[in-house]
């Protein structure tokens, strides 16, 4: 079956099926490219997902149940960082979600540090 055909057969939109694959609920097609194909097994799994959802399971719960594909990589939890390029050969990273007073404190320290690690001959130069 093509994606369009399995969408028609399952009554689920093609985009939802792609979302389930990305979400780790359904295996990808058995071949790649133009020859990408979905089997009866895929269709059964989609029916199973629908039935589990109807019984109150969330997609996260369904993904954890046996019967699905091995869990595909999902985005890990994120943190954000400010990068201070203090010199051509030095970069300092600082957590971006620090409190404003902490950010100010660290920034002052970074600026001091930047002054100290300037290559010889640049110390007095104003940037």
């Amino acid at each position, binding site marked *: 079956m093509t994606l369009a055909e399995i969408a028609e057969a399952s009554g689920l*939109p093609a985009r939802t099926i792609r*979302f389930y694959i990305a979400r780790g609920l359904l295996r990808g097609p058995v071949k790649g490219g133009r020859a990408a194909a979905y089997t009866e097994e895929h269709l059964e799994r989609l029916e199973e997902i629908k039935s589990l959802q109807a019984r109150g399971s969330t997609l996260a719960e369904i993904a954890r149940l046996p019967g699905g594909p091995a869990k595909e990589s999902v985005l890990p939890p994120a943190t954000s960082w*400010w990068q201070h390029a203090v010199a051509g050969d030095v970069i300092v990273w600082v957590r971006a979600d620090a409190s404003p007073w902490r950010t100010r404190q660290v920034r002052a320290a970074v600026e001091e540090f930047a002054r100290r690690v300037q290559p010889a001959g640049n110390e007095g130069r104003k940037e």
Partner: protein
Amino acid sequence: MSTALSFAPVAAPTGEPLRLAMQRLWLTGQVLPAGARLVVQHIFQSEEERPLEVIYSFPLPRDAALRRFRITGDGFETHSELKETEEAVKAYEKGLAEGSLSALARQYGDGIVNLTVGNIRPKEKVTVYLEVLAGVELRDDGFRFRFPFTLAPAYHARMRAAVTEGEGEVELPADEFGDVILPRFRKDASSLHEVGFELSVLHELPVEEIGSPSHSIRVRQPAPGSARVALAPERDVPNRDLVLDVRFRETRAQVLAGPREGKRPFAIIVPSTLFGPAAEAPRRTVMLLDRSGSMAGEPIAQARKAIEACLAVLSDQDSFVLVAFDDKVESMHRAPVPATREERERARAFLKKIDARGGTELAAGVREAARLLGGEGDIVILTDGQVYGTEDILAQARATGVRLSCLGIGSASQDRFLSLLARETGGVSRFVTPRERVDLAAVDLFASLGRPVATGLTAEGVQPEPPRFVFAGTPVLLFGETENHGRVDLAWDGGSLSFDVPPGDAETGEAVRLLRGSRLITDWESRYPKEEAVAPLRKRRQSRVAERLLELSRTYGLASREMALVAVVRRAGDRPGELPETRVVPVGMPQDTEFQAYFPHAAPMLASLAPPAMAAPSARKIVFDAGNASIEAAAPVRPGRLTRLMRRAREAPPAASGDSGLIDLAALLEPDGGMPGGSPEERAARTVAAVLAFVAGGHSSASGAFRLHVARLVEYLKSLSPAAGPETLWIGTAVQAASSGKAPEGAWLELARRPGAGWKELEKSAQP
């Protein structure tokens, strides 16, 4: 010296640079007093080795519709087509199967849009410019513009919420909501895409102030009639709506128009002051308080105080009842009771017990409120409006036949729903952010309700129909089209007005025509019967609502749930059949909304222990300049009073601020309009002090949120027959202050609230 600085989100456990599918959301466009014509820039960047399909979900602002989009990238630019939704989905899927870059903007129920861009090639950058029409919240002296940069999670009895990898997920039943995909919600929005804005505010009336209670802004006035408003810092995070307040120096009718195909589309804004004073009649009010879990904290505390202050405006002839709802409805009485002192005391005790908990069964609350009211009077709802299935709630509210007015509280917009709820039932709505004074806004809204200044409005050539009622403070917005004679007659019970429609310019004409279209589409979208919303095409075609929406979409060239926007970009090297990796763009939890209110079983977030990698190849450059965060303004525009008010509220605990003191004072008014006291002298003296306290706080008997309180206090003073002497002088001073808006210096607030205070204390309080 300075250090070069860049911003680079990374994955906590590995320190690897984080791959954001959407990098930037930037809002530009024009904001007019009748609505906004916006262009939203979305930058998608793939860091994948495979083609990428990105889904970005966002809520529409009030009275909004999508017009078209343009998709650009390296060596291509393509414009969207407007097609019937099922055709558009087919075109998108066909384009995707053929390996072509495809984009689809599709609207679902509750005004949620999925913008899906598929087959973004590895390492490719694609930009989508989406044009959106949106309404504004009108006030007699200006307007508030609101644009959602995030999506609030909401409540539905059949929804499922889960926490996955520290992020909240919400799933809605497909039989009611179709295949809409909602984003994941992150507690911390700082590692998400950057957002910002630069807007032109076009105005004919001179502007008194432009401010924002949500963002730090920079305002410039490059030319008369046009102000540029931009985000002051370089970037911001997607965790709250943009809210802009524009206040004019004068209050008068505005007519926007322009030529188009031999006709003249127009928008007329008629201030409520042109309809005359409100008629006197007893008020019958149900105060309906949302006590759902998402209201926890400051919103519910302020809402409680606000209700107390609103009740203080009522007299013995008025009647009221309090109802609180979450997934249960609790009412204080079985029917409205006279607003006597005892009943207000009981109401206060009832309110003290109200804490935030549970879901938001708004429809059940409205039904109970309507039943209690028995078909006559007003329902005033204080809610964050965070519910799904709003069309169903609207249908139930319309069926009650009762007028609903809404005070929305939230940093992420449910503005579209609450403005519809009020408009469709004949009421008015206001939407405030939790960092503004919710209680002041409630008192202001309450002051305008109960007694309309006009009813029975009719106007030829106007569509949608004029509102059934006009309330003080809220103008009437009329959209229509004239032949080139250029005159519109507006009539109401007991009055009429005529407006000349100027020739205008073609750009304004097109803008008001599109705003009218988006308003009509929003109105009809809200009338979708629940069972038809996700029915198959053949069945839906028989629907009156679907038929009308198709017609409106075609007439105005705007998307609706029946018509969507699609574009397919065919390029050399397209690889048919390759399955793209689907990614849903996460959003930040709205500021001031508790993550636990929706996702109570949240696993603790992983701490970031790993040191970050030393270099992030895709780091974005951010210029860091703290000086930019200040508000710059050129005359005559200056930062808004609301902004200052908000800042003050944030800096000081609410109980310590002057406005909080006035709220407490307002709650003390007796049903006869005077202040309480152990003797007639004490009551009179404290009433004088109360009038002066309100006036000193910027409220007179004609303006300000506490105008009704001032008017009632003055009525009480006028009813007294004091002995000649200082008493008469003081009463005269208070009456004069209430009408002029100017009060002598003095510690009036403290005196008005002090039991036992009399004329002597009044003399002492007056400062030379």
